[in-house]
């Protein structure tokens, strides 16, 4: 089986790098609302990755739960407390 025929591995590695950047950013930013939004982006990229890895059901769930509801919940909390974080 030929690698580049079956899996879009270049695309894959690009997303993997972006996912890691998002993860670092979500932890490093000082503004909690931005953190929440970036963690939503992180989930969405994960969901792309999983679709591409043939896990459609998981990706569907992650798109609805991780990128959707979790982000709203995080935002809901972040807006209720002091927005600035010390680290």
């Amino acid at each position, binding site marked *: *089986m030929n690698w580049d025929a*079956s*899996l879009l591995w270049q695309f894959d590695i690009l997303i993997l790098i972006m996912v890691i950047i998002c993860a670092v950013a979500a932890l490093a930013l000082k503004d909690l609302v931005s953190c929440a939004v970036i963690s939503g982006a992180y989930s969405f990229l994960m969901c792309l990755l999983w679709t591409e890895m043939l896990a*459609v*059901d998981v990706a*569907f*769930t992650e798109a*609805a*739960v991780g990128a*959707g*509801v979790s982000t*709203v*919940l995080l*935002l*809901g*909390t972040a*807006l*209720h*407390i002091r927005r600035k974080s010390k680290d």
Partner: protein
Amino acid sequence: MKRLALLIIIVLGVLLLRAAGDFPDWGDPSSPASTYLSPYYIENSLRDTEVPNFVTSILADYRGYDTMFETVVIFCAGITVLTILRHTHRKREKIILPRPQRQGSDLILQAAARLLVPPMQLFALYVVAHGHHSPGGGFQGGVILGASFILLALAYDLKTVLKRFKEKKILLCAGLGVLIYAGIGAFCLFLGRNFLAYAAWHKVLGTSEIMAHSHGMLGVEIGVAITVMAIMLSLYVDLASGGDLDEGL
């Protein structure tokens, strides 16, 4: 704390790196995971259960016991958040949560929400009902259904949604969904089969045992969808208003 964390991470990283070298390659069709158990599901799912989506058939039937408890986890989370936030111990609380600023109502947002919510709910029902044949199922449909209410609450306010969907009803739905799942499973006991053996339902439904599996799964997915919808909404409602159920975001 930072140094301790770095130490833990370095130790764990070295351990996991050692292990990863030992794994079969990513996507290797001859890895143990791809050759041992999964072919059975792929080859027999249609014969055993009449469901072409293997994920659904494993989720709701072969490993239905897991999924039942997964629904219970969701239910439990909803009750947990409710008891934590709605539990009144005001004398211990120093701070009143700052209210997020609302700049009046936004016409465009509200109009868009009005247009979006009905198709979303319809799509959610489709996802639940068509989970046997396409990606999706109870969880995904339930989350979308819950998200449609959340969208409404975001565009208007919490009161608009809670007027249509009272907190009591939300709780009732949450419990009802899990009870549908567990009830379908427990009823099999009365029909003389093991817990969650949907085949037992063929006596009641008047179909073949295999179709009974398919119908059992549909019933279970509906139960899951109801619970997930209610709990997603309840989580949002409680977290966005800090447990007061007044304003929301």
